[in-house]
């Protein structure tokens, strides 16, 4: 069980690294959003699951962490959607291959 925890946390960190690089390197708002929205949610969920596996804890506590995961799973994509929509409505211009 503990071994699984290490693996999950490490994988989560790798995904977060991907998020960070994407956030820094992608050329425009929409692509950055893509990196941030997916990578962030996935890495957070993975690390939290890893915490459940790694630490011996009561069922109630595990349930609470699962609740956090649940909220992040619903909240984070919704927030991403809202921000994407906001960017679109506010007029963020998408990047094109031919633009400089």
């Amino acid at each position, binding site marked *: 069980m503990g071994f699984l925890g290490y693996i999950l946390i490490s994988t989560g960190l790798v995904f977060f690294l991907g998020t960070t690089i994407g956030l820094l390197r992608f050329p425009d708002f929409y692509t950055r959003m893509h990196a941030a929205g997916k990578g*962030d949610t996935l890495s957070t969920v993975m690390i939290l699951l890893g915490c459940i596996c790694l630490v011996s804890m009561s069922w109630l506590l595990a349930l*609470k962490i699962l609740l*956090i995961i649940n909220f992040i799973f619903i*909240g984070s994509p919704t927030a991403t959607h809202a921000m994407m929509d906001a960017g679109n409505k506010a007029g963020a211009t998408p990047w094109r291959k031919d633009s400089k």
Partner: protein
Amino acid sequence: MNTFITAAGVALIGLMLLVLIRAIKGPTVIDRLVAINVIGTKSIVLLLFAGILFGQLEMFVDIALGYGLLNYIVSIAASRYYQHRKSLEPEHSPGGSPVS
């Protein structure tokens, strides 16, 4: 286990620092918003790590839960701002009256 968690936490903070670069660079507000949202989500994870290191995870889970919920509200509120106002204002207007 504690060493691993500490290392993971330090790595998380380091990556958060990189994400902060996006928040500093912008270029538009909505980019900053994305970066801050990512930092907010990762704070939840860090809070749980702190709980594990203290050996009192049950005390920290509640805070993390509250954190996640409020982070969601902030993201929604900030994106609503741009959904309703419908203009991504320039970072500064060149003097004179503001555009609004």
